[in-house]
């Protein structure tokens, strides 16, 4: 106790000094408790300095992976793995993410005159990990399979009118050509953008079908096995523990430099940083702002910033008597301390962004009309004449979100709104959100594929707002919001073939959305990965895709 007081009085120290002192105190305090048994059990110690030069070791939270089947996987960490294992017809290039899609397993493509049919010509000489050649038949099988299995991400393909019953006609392989026919004319970029998502992965038909059980199209086998043609194959996936990737030396773009990639689940940011500073890992993916700041001081570590597609937002349930009042909605947008949060506990990891299309997306705009203005909010609430009221906010137990919620709670209290924060596990909160039970939600949304429709179709589109519709996948539905004319505009934007017109349509939708919607989009994610100075060319995927390990050198 006394030693702690001693520190308290001397506390105007710099960081490294402080850490040194802390080391001493804690060692002293704990010596009696831990050191005794510890010392006896210590024949060797000292972690090895660095990881092997042809191996990339990554610490990342991977507890969200539920399957490695590209027709089913729909989580962030799952996409990270799948992107490195499977090739697609068209794909984004890590060297130039802004270019959008480029040829991958398809060498080229042609669009028919009516704009409905796209015919791909397959690249020659590419093989799967099994040694089988990649053919148009495999591509046909992969897309048909994804539609037939009807797993969650299948909507990315079925929104073009593909169904189990029509795939025989709409997705066809002939020789080295594959043609797909959509139900109406869409912007070609929209269709191709969707094919760069994980669900567009081309699997090895022979290998997969050899492992089919009870007509499951290999879904059970692909759960933890892979049959791709990409830069890596999965050696093992242990849930909530690790994923081990082995390089494919026959990768058509050249053998990757990293022969083995190990992704290890490490929950805590502090632990990831310790591992990184000790040289036990090469990359730490989940450092919080404080640990990023701390790691920057280390000479062996660099911080890599990349703008990602994930948005942080709050939303107001339109079933709530007060929150459905447009003035109240506007008032709440003025009760958010965007700048304060960006500059404090979100520092470096989120940037203010108030529109539903992430920066770098077609049609994204940078308008930022809202900032913290308690007086204005109070005036708006008075105008609305709602008096004092209470709302329940649902937040999953992630510290940054709980902090956002508390910051809002604090501001709302100043204008007579009592906010009760319900913290729960991700699934718990989501269950209630989907059932339209939460008054207020603080959460995040990541785009599913690199096309504006991915977010427009969920934030600004809700054709049937009745409880019976159960359109629980749509954010507008979850907040019981009928977007009115915005819905029709969204539908029109999807089929607009002209890129410039399409862009203008999305800009208009967002400007209206910004004013009237019950959503306050606050921030866009910047991922800050800590890595050893020696690691280069690691691209996390920007706003449009997932990580690429094959260009990495060390």
């Amino acid at each position, binding site marked *: 106790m006394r030693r702690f007081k001693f520190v308290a009085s001397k506390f105007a120290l710099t960081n490294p000094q402080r850490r040194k002192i802390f*080391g001493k105190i804690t060692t002293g305090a704990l010596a009696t408790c831990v050191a005794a048994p510890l010392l006896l059990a210590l024949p060797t110690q000292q972690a090895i300095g660095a990881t092997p030069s042809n191996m990339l070791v990554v610490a990342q939270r991977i507890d969200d992976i539920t399957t490695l089947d590209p027709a089913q996987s729909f989580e962030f960490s799952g996409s990270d793995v799948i992107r490195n294992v499977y090739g697609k017809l068209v794909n984004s290039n890590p060297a130039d993410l802004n270019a959008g899609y480029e040829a991958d397993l398809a060498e080229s493509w042609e669009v028919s005159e009516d704009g409905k049919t796209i015919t791909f010509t397959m690249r020659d000489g590419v093989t799967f990990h099994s040694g089988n050649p990649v053919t148009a038949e495999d591509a046909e099988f992969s897309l048909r399979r994804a539609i037939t299995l009807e797993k969650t991400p299948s909507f990315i393909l079925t929104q073009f009118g593909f169904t189990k019953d029509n795939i025989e006609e709409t997705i066809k392989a002939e020789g080295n050509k594959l043609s797909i026919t959509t139900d109406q004319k869409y912007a070609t970029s929209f269709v191709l953008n969707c094919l760069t998502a994980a669900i567009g992965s081309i699997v090895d038909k022979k290998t997969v079908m050899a492992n089919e059980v009870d007509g499951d199209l290999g879904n059970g086998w692909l759960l933890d096995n892979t049959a791709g043609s990409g830069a890596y194959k999965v050696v093992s996936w242990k849930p909530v523990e690790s994923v081990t990737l082995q390089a494919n030396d026959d990768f058509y773009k050249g053998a990757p430099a990293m022969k083995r990639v190990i992704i*290890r689940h490490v929950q805590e940011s502090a632990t990831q940083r310790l591992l990184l500073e000790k040289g036990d890992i090469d990359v730490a993916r989940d450092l919080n702002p404080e640990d990023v700041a701390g790691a920057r001081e280390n000479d062996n570590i660099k911080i890599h910033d990349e703008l990602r597609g994930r948005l942080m937002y709050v939303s107001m349930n339109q079933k709530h008597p007060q929150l459905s009042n447009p003035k109240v909605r506007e008032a709440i947008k003025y009760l958010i301390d965007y700048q304060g949060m960006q500059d404090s506990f979100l520092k470096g990891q989120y940037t203010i962004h108030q529109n539903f299309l992430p920066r770098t997306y077609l049609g994204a705009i940078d308008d930022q009309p809202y900032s913290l203005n308690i007086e204005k909010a109070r005036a708006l609430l008075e105008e609305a004449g709602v008096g004092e009221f209470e709302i329940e906010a649902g937040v999953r137990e992630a510290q940054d979100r709980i902090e956002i919620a508390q910051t809002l709670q604090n501001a709302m209290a100043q204008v007579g709104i009592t906010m009760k924060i319900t913290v729960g596990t991700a699934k718990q909160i989501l*269950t209630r959100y989907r059932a339209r039970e939460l008054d207020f939600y603080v959460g995040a949304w990541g785009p599913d594929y690199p096309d504006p429709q991915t977010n427009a179709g*969920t934030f600004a589109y809700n054709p049937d707002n009745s409880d019976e519709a*159960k359109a629980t996948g749509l954010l507008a539905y979850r907040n019981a919001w009928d977007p009115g004319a915005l819905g029709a505009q969204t539908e029109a934007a999807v089929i607009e073939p002209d890129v410039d017109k399409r862009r203008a349509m999305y800009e208009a939708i967002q400007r209206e959305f910004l004013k009237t919607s019950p959503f306050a989009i606050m921030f866009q994610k910047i991922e800050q990965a800590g890595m050893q100075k020696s690691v280069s060319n690691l691209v996390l995927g920007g706003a449009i895709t997932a990580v690429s390990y094959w260009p990495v050198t060390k």
Partner: protein
Amino acid sequence: MTTAAGKPPPTEYRSGWTRGSIKLARVIGSVLVTMLGLLFITFIIGRVMPIDPVISVVGERATKEVYDAAYQEMGLDKPVLVQFFYYLSDVVRGDFGTSYLNGRPVADEIRRVFPATLELATIGTLIGIIFGVPLGMIAAVKRDSWIDQVARVVALVGYSMPIFWLGLVGLLVFYGILGWVGGPGRVGIFYVDIVPPVTGMILIDSALDGQWEIFWDAVSHIVLPASILGYYSLAYISRMTRSFMLEQLNAEYVTTARVKGLSEWTVIWRHAFGNIKVQLITVIALSYAGLLEGSVLTEIIFSWPGIGSYITTALLSADMNAVLGGTVVVGLVFVCLNVLSDLLYSFFDPRAK
């Protein structure tokens, strides 16, 4: 017991045999009933929990059709009791179902994670015994001396420390600052997947495989979490040892032995310690069971892929098959250790007969 006494058995031979088997049947029966109750309660909790298990399977963006199909496939449209009955009949056949979360057979998953916990808890308990028993003995022999007070404080501090905090600070100091021990996880990350799993316990597997470099690396990783768990076990074991020893040292026969002029050493070791052995085994078994089920937070802090963090993760995602499977295994281990210590007790302790 009452049934055996109610009807006098025809022959001497049969009586002994019958009594033995009845006793065994009672033990097995009570274990079965306990396990059944455990399953039932866990099942009910899982069903009333306001977490939609379907989301774990289909993800948050599934369309209504995908959602409904999964709902039916999981049998959630049937009455709870029917679901429970189906589940039970699968369990009886040794099938714990598949995880909603990662689609794998729960039994395989438990086989993967349980050895990690077993390894940790075993070493923790060993540390607890090695340090706890002598500490408790000395404290009892030198009652009220300074050494007794120190032992008391050491033990009570152990009881009072929030384990997640101790774990964080320990990791920071011994790994982060001093670099004496390995970091989180069971082995250095680049050793992952090298040793073929035989027992699932990496210390044993690496030794069997002759991979001594990995063995020592694993040792350096397990030292800290095991010491922290071991400290808890130490606190409990030393307190109980002290209390048992005091009881013995105050007993008349010890006084008699002393009067007879036996050396203090003989009195303490031969007589007193000899008599508390059985009680001690019970305590150690309980503490072992406690570590096996109580290492959740330690596992989380140390990224230790054990059964505690497995059940917790599953629970928070409403992955009920995994939760049920995990709970059954942990509960079974707990009950078995209890029964075992009871049996040992009645076997070794003449008074309990």
